């Protein structure tokens, strides 16, 4: 009956009970009270062992909890300090608001003009090159500067057919050597006064595409 009751409370217990029963001298009979006490004592020893490890675990856990709480407090205080610093900096920067606005606008304008100037530089170089091609006796009638297409569309008037041919020869000679510029003659017209009108386009795409476009995109002003 005792053994069955012990078995309900675990293997260790059962082992103890079995040991007690086995170790009891046959002739003396069985002292159930003493055995029961021994089993209970062994149980207590075992429970105390568990409790000891639990306490160690609990202590470690509490250290972790305290560590976490302290860490949170430290980080919270650091954040407060940084927030205070940010607020102070903002308050001081607010005293420079006019200067800040002026500088931002200034910087933006410089960036826009820089982009524009790069574009103009390409165009300027192309125009300079184009002017250098035209001989003295020919007159540039019209020049259309197309920044988007990187083209100079032109009309050049030559006083006679020989000057016109000379102009075409110049175009051919100079541009076969040049890799940046290309020219396309679209028409040659003889006018009623005997002059010749040469129409064409000088492309400078290779030059123009190396320069950045203004940021952000140029938008035409609306007309009213």
């Amino acid at each position: 009956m005792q053994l069955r009751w012990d078995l309900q409370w675990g293997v260790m217990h059962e082992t103890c009970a079995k040991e007690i029963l086995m170790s009891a001298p046959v002739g003396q009979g069985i002292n159930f009270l003493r055995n029961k006490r021994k089993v209970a004592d062994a149980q207590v020893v075992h429970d105390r062992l568990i409790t000891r490890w639990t306490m160690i675990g609990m202590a470690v856990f509490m250290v972790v909890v305290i560590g976490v709480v302290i860490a949170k407090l430290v980080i919270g205080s650091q954040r407060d300090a940084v927030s205070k610093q940010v607020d102070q900096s903002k308050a001081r920067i607010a005293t420079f608001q006019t200067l800040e606005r002026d500088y931002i606008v200034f910087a933006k304008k410089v960036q826009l003009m820089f982009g524009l100037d790069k574009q103009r530089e390409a165009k300027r170089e192309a125009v300079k090159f184009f002017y250098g091609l035209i001989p003295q006796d020919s007159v540039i009638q019209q020049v259309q500067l197309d920044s988007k297409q990187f083209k100079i569309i032109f009309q050049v008037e030559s006083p006679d057919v020989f000057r016109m041919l000379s102009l075409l020869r110049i175009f051919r000679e100079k541009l076969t050597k040049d890799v940046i510029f290309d020219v396309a003659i679209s028409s040659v017209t003889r006018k009623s006064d005997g002059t010749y009108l040469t129409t064409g386009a000088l492309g400078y795409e290779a030059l123009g595409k190396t320069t950045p476009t203004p940021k952000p995109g140029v938008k035409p002003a609306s007309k009213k």
Partner: protein
Amino acid sequence: MTVGPEMSLRQFARQRRYLLISVLCWIAMFMLLFSVVIPQIQDIQYLQSRLETERSTADQLKNKLQFLEAFDLNGFKAQNERVNVMLPATKPFLPLLYSLKELAKQEDVIFSGLDWSIGLVASDSAAQSQGTETSKSTKTTAAQVASGDSLQKMNLVLKVLGTTEKLNGYFDAMTRITPVVEIDDVALAPKFQIQQGIYEATLKLTSFFAPLTTLRTAVTGDKPLPKLTQEEQAYIQKLNEYTTFVEAQNVSIATPSARQNPFGF
């Protein structure tokens, strides 16, 4: 209540008190873990990320403050004025015409015509009207709000008379005056009935302006200041090469005579 056949609950509690304490400890630890430790760790993670963000903001603000405090105000004012003259906030109609007229005098060419159907000019309303028009035409988007921060064009057509050499000099000098102007199209027509060798040049010009309305109104303390590249900084020095006809600022349209002939033609 009994736990076993020969043990009451009280006896059991007394007998297994250490085990019960252990069990209670474990329950307490689990409760603390889920109610305190895990939320605290989550808070710490959040605080840490916020702290990092705020630290970077603090650094940015510190740099910005140092930059603003160490600013050479006098030098900046001069540069800023120059930039504002070159790229004004409003349509630079009057200053541009004055500059072109002065340049024409300088290069010995004559104004012979002007197409000035350019809408509202040289006023705050001109810049504002464009912003309003943009917002009316389509729904407001970030891109459209930023449209006030883009480079805007003002077109005009100008006719000048002169010899080809002088006209060429005029065109060349025109690219280095303020406000910034760009020649889009040049057409020459002989006017030999006036004088031999005289041509009339019809110029399609584009002048630029930048209202930068969004930038002007949305200055906030915590955004970093824009940084200019080395090339852009070098370009600022190049601005001194542009010719400014300062008298353009003194053009008065207040008097009746000035209204009749504001450009002194």
